[in-house]
Structure formats: structure tokens, C-alpha cells
């Protein structure tokens, strides 16, 4: 069965007729040929397809395209404003926080979503004081909060300082 939707991706609106079985990830990759989000498992297990949906990180392989008709989808490429790389982009390159680069747009979107969660005061599994108003993104916090994104090249030890540098600039790391 087909349904007509409008996907709003990285600031542009795309009217689209989709099979109701189509995931947001496949709509982006196979229909719009926006291949910034990657497919690494198609089952919400690896995080390579992470995008921001109205600012919150989601595994786009677990979202049906027909359910996001009215939402704003942001990919890693969409985080770049006016052609300028996002500070996470620059930090990932500077810290060599990837090797093959395939999980990386998902890591970047996840980091962007995670920084917003920290700014909103959300605690994590490793947060000692659940009532604290301010989150301090220590290395342990970053490791925990970024663990939904697998990196088989295992650039983890570089992803942590890459995210930490941006967290410090954004005031969520002391």
C-alpha cells in the first residue's frame, strides 16, 4: 500500500509516495538518495542510521516513514549550516574519531542529540546524582551516552575526546 507524505529533511520539503512498509532510513537512502544516514543492521542495533527527529536522536531504521510526515529530520550533513561544518564535524576530524567513516554520521547525530539531552539535564546510567540540575559530561558520561553507536573500527578512544571538546564549548563539561 502506498501513502503520500512530505518528508522534511535538512530544511527542505520532499513530497513523496511511499510504501507503508518503508522505514525512514530507506525513504532517505533509497528514495531521496540522501545517504548521510547509513544502514548497518536495519534493526536498531548499531546506531549507524541515527538522525535527529525534531532535535531528538532516533534510529531511523526503526521509524516508519509514514509516521514522520510532520517532523523535521536532520542528518549529519544537515547539521552543517550554510555549507560550514558543524563544530562536531570539525572535532571528529581533528580527533580522528573514525576510520572507515561508515558509522560516523550516526555518531555525529547521536553526539548532537546527546549534547542536547545533557543541556536539558537528563541523567544517564552513570550519573551519580539523579537530581542534579546540571549534567557534567565526564568521559564516563560520554562513553555511556554514546554506547548506542557501534564502531567496528573501534575509534571509541578518539570519539570521547572529540565529543568532550564540543561539550566543553557548549558548557556541559566542567
Amino acid at each position, binding site marked *: 500500500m502506498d501513502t503520500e507524505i512530505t518528508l522534511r529533511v535538512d530544511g527542505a520539503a520532499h513530497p513523496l509516495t511511499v510504501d507503508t512498509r518503508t522505514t525512514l532510513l530507506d525513504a532517505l537512502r533509497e528514495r531521496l*538518495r540522501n545517504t548521510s544516514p*547509513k544502514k*548497518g543492521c536495519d*534493526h536498531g542495533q*548499531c546506531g549507524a542510521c541515527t538522525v535527529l527527529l525534531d532535535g531528538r536522536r532516533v534510529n531511523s531504521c526503526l521509524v516508519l516513514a509514514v509516521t514522520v510526515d510532520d517532523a523535521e529530520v536532520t542528518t549529519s550533513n544537515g547539521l552543517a549550516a550554510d555549507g560550514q561544518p558543524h563544530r562536531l564535524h570539525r572535532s571528529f*576530524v581533528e580527533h580522528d574519531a573514525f576510520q*572507515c*567513516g561508515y558509522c560516523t554520521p550516526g555518531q555525529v547525530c547521536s553526539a548532537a542529540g546527546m549534547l542536547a539531552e545533557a543541556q536539558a539535564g537528563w541523567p544517564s546510567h552513570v550519573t551519580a546524582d539523579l537530581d542534579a540540575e546540571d549534567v557534567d559530561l565526564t568521559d564516563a558520561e560520554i562513553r555511556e551516552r554514546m554506547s548506542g553507536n557501534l564502531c567496528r573500527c*573501534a575509534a571509541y578512544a578518539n*570519539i570521547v575526546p572529540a565529543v568532550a571538546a564540543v561539550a566543553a564549548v557548549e558548557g556541559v563539561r566542567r
Partner: protein
Amino acid sequence: MTTIDRLVGAGVDRIDGPAKVRGTAAYAYEQDPGEPIAHLAVVQSTVNRGRITRLDPSRAEAMTGVLAVLTPANAPRLAGDLASDLPVLQSPEVHYQGQVVAAVVAETSEIAKAAVGGVVVEYAAEVPDVVLSADRDDLYAPEKVMAGFDTDSVIGDVDGALAAAAVTVDATYETPAQHNNPIEMHASMARWDGDSLTLWDANQGPHTIVSDLVKGFALEPGQVRVISPYVGGAFGSKAFTHPNQMLAAMAARVVGRTVVFELTRQQMFSLVGHRTPTIQRIRLGADPEGRLTAISHEVVEHTSKISEFAEQTATATRVLYAAANRRTTHRLARLDVPPPTIMRAPGETPGMFALESAMDELAVALGIDPVELRIRNEPAEDPERHVPWSSRHLVECLRTGAERFGWAGRDPRPRMRTEGRWLVGTGVAAATYPTRRRKADCRISVDGRGRYVVEIDGSDIGTGAWTTLSQIAADALGVGLDAVELRIGDSRLPRAGGAGGSTGLASWGSAVVLTARDLRRRLEEQYGGQLPADGLVVDGGVGGESPHAKTHSMHAFGAHFVEVRVDRDTGEVRVPRATSVYDGGTIVNAKTARSQFLGGFSMGISMALHEESQIDARLGHYVNHDLAEYHIATNADIGELDISWLDEPDELANEIGLKGIGEIGITGAAAAVANAYWHATGLRIRDLPITPGKYFRELGLT
């Protein structure tokens, strides 16, 4: 060599970095084939051994949007003598579970996936034989093991030396089957233009894929082009051709338009190889001062019924330590499993877990510090080939690592340190991996304005080759990075071996350096050092192994120091910190090299604590065939990693002095973790992975 000292060594940011972080670097399936793409999905065998007795595709064929269903009855015949699992859909015989028995091609991926369920297949099946054991009566000695190594090596009188030794260790270690699981799943997109085939493909070297397609489709090499500029990880599984390339090309020919076959994660556990499980018996004999008198390493592992893949598991044992009496053997069982393949440091990775665990056990038995024990057994020359080392700095790695890690003053007794519920221990292990070089061709062109184009069919699977090869080229040409345009990952480029065996940069880099030298010499001799207005094109390359390879033993080395914490109540294992020091020869890019080292080492932690492909002995399939059940290390599993290297170029190895660093990091890493685990708990885990359950098993609580 005076030109190679400006960019080489610097921590240059990845050239492909900005595109990769934004997601605009186009991997295989992300390339534009120039026409709408049809999608292929496969029906896989649910039995391990048998024959298809009935296959009815009619329900799938009737579905709207289905373009074709390929079966053994109607699939195009493949020509040639294709090996292993490459003759896809050529016969009703089934050799392993997950084998492709039919393929649906459809307008969309949703339709293709749904139509797979519309293909009815029935089998006459036999009971699968999938369980490896050391006491099987059908174990055999292959003619050679991987990479051309001898199957066995026997020197001196091992049994006599063991009987006479003051101290011995006799232990059996096991490593499970493992799956490579690069995050980019294998994907092949094929388009035919007349009799010419273009394949956008995820692989470690386009030329390797071309030769199998040429064979299978009875084409001339010029009729096949494989394009792979960006590859989303590989770790060995993308080194060789697998069914996906054959199928995509076959299906595109049948439906007359571009077809993509992107594997599912689940299919990554049956169609693109795995690392064999191993059972390894190690016996060590030593005198009271800890000098080894005998080393015996006997390996049992598996291969498939349709291919022989003999992992070279004991070969590191042939080079690591001195001992007059030595024996290494490899024996295989042919099982009803998918064909195994190479996975990061095949041989060294499982083999070094066993050897370096046994060395730790020997150190304990002798009451000698494990760092000191290794130093006492440092061989002056290759202990089996009896040739000098091109360079070997293992002792320096051990000493430097011990210093950086804070090893001095360590209480050798196990289970002496606790912090709250954590049992804390430290461990050490050595690392080694061979240094080799392969034949590679190269072309360098320069225009009248000083723009250089360097062309070579190298491959960047995450290694940093886009950047490191550009650095090498710029230095060799005596120009800046921005004057060099590198082209790799396309079979139209000059032929080169793939990224594998840590040979990539040694081979491609040497080819680039030699071609650049030739170009500069010609400019000097024929044009008085001036660039000719219409430019110059020079073809060159490197013939293969270093001229010194026959007379010298060439290897990278390293040492890992690891702290392990084990929760005394739950058995949870953490690795909060580690130090690794490497002897990798010239380091071309300080930034990307560090990533290679820490990535390899982290995969070793993953192997030590998580990775295990579990096969169902009755039903014959890998049960945990996805990333929710096949666990790999994630961010929270990796602690502080202190990575460093010695600045010791190996002048005999190749034109750059590098040793190859893609695999050394994982070798020995799992043993270092297991040794630290023993120090923390007093429990010796000899079968990976070290899961919480094994803590209770060793305590006799299960």
C-alpha cells in the same frame, strides 16, 4: 631518501574526513549508477547439507513489482572454475546453512524482501556436522596453511626437552568462531552496458573482484570495472569475492538494468566468511632461570566442505621466542559450515592468545616476572629460519610499556588487590605481525603547472590510505599535499593488491615512491628539471617482496599492558586502562596510525570479553547472528588507552621503512586481558570470551 621527511610522520587530518563526518563520501551502494536501481533479496538454505527437492517461486513471481526470481533452474550459467561458494545458484546441492538457493529481484527493497517469503523450498537434508573437537578422527594436515606457510615445523627433540625441563606448562586454549562484521554490510551494485559490467562494490581491492567476475562471466579483464573509493570497514571479510558480487552481476544481466544486493546484518553471518574456531595445545619447557628449552603449539581448527581455508594459527610461535626444540602443527576438520575467511590478523590473533597466555602461566610457574621472562627468551635471530631480523625491538617495547604503564613493583600474586567490589589485576602480552610487500603498479602524471595525479588501485577501508599515500606521494615528488591528487579504489587504475595482511601501504607506498623517483629523474635528465608544457606521464611500480625478505626475517612487534577489574559478585569484567607500545617501523601519519593501533587493540578487548559466534550443534546455524546477540565492544567497553611507538624505521623492509600496522594491535591483546584477569581473580580462563558466566564456572558455582 632525503625527500621523504616532510609530510611523512606528521599527524595530517584525513583528506576524506570532512566528507565522511557529514556522510557525503559515497560508499558502494551510495554511488550513482545513472539509472533507477532494482533490488535483490535472497532466499537462504535452512539446512547445512543436502539437496533442494522442490522449489516453487510462483507466488513470489506473481507479486506486483517483482522483476525476476533466480533459482538453480533458471539462473545464468557461470563459466570457469569458480572456487568455494562463488558458483551461486548453479546446482540444487546445499553445502552450508545460509547458502543462497534463490534470489528475488524487484522494483523496491520492500517488495524484494517481502517476495522472499513467497518462494517455497523443500530439501532432502542430512544431519549437520558442525562441531569442532580435538579428538575427531577425521582431522587432516593441509598441504600448506594460509599465506604460504608450512603446515608443520619440527626442530630438535621437543618431547625429550619437555621431559627434561625443570618447569613445564601444558595447557589447551580455545577461541570461538568470530565474524568480521564491518558496519557497512557487503553491498554490490551491478550495471551492464552491452557486454561490459560495472560493479560498485564494498571490497578491499577491486582487482581481486575483477578476476573472479572475468572468470565467472567469461569476459576479458577490460570488460569489467569495479569501483570502490570508500569502504565501510572490512577486517578481512571484504578481501575476497563472495556470492554477493556474482549475484548482483547475474541478476543485472537477467533484468537488464542496475541491480543492488545489500546484505542484511543477519546474512553477514553466513555469506561472507568468519574466523575459524581454534583448539590449541601449548606445551612449554624451561630451565629454572626461565630460558625456554621447548615450545610445542598444536592447532586444531575447521574449514568448510567446499573450500580449504587453513588459518596459520601457530606461525607467530615460530618467530616470537628462542628455544632449541620447537614444534608447530595445524590440523583441520572439514565441516558443514560456510567457508571461513581471513579476519584481522588471521593466525596471529587466535594463536597469540594461546602462546601469550601460556607464557604468563610459565612465568607464574617459574616465579619470574612475565615481562622479564619474555626478555630472557628474546631470540638473536629468527629461531626457525635462522636469518637475522630486519629490525626487532620487542624488548624495547616491553621496557617502554612497563615504564609508561607503571608495571614496576607489581605484586605477582593473584587476587591481592581489591577496590570495593572490584578485584584488580594487571597483565602483559607481546604482539607481532609479519611485514610483507606485494607487487603494485602505479602511474604518476604531471601537467605543465605542477599538478600531480597519482593513480594506483589501492584501497582505503578505514586505514587512512587516502591520506597516508598522498603524504608519501607529496614527499616523494617534493611538493606539497595540495599539489597531489590521489586516485584509488577503481580497477581501471594501475593494478595493485588489496588492503590485507598489513601490506597496503608497504606495497602501494613503495610503488608510489619508486614511480615518483623515476618521474623526477626523467624531469631532470630529459627536461633539465623543468616541467614540460604538455606534462609527463610515468608508469612504474614495485615488483613484490623486499629484496631483503629472503635473507632477513621481517616483523612488526609490540607490547600490551592491561589493567582488568572484575566485580567479585557479578563477574563483570572491565578494562579501565591499557598501554601499548609498538615497533611498527616508520609511522607515516601520527594521527591515523594511532587510530589503527587503538582500533586493533580495542578489537582485541572485544575478542577477549565479548565475541563468540555460537553454532547450534543440532540445527547447524549461527544462533546469535545479529549485533544484538553477537556482541562487539562499544564505547563504554573501552577505557583509557595509552598508545605509543618507537621511532625505528626498518630500512630493509620497503622504500618507506614502515612495517604495516593494521593488524599488530589486535595480536596479543586478548592474552593481555586474560593474563590481567588471572592476576585480578586467580582464575585462568583458557577459552574466550571471558564472560561473567565463566567467573562462576571457574569458581565451581554453576
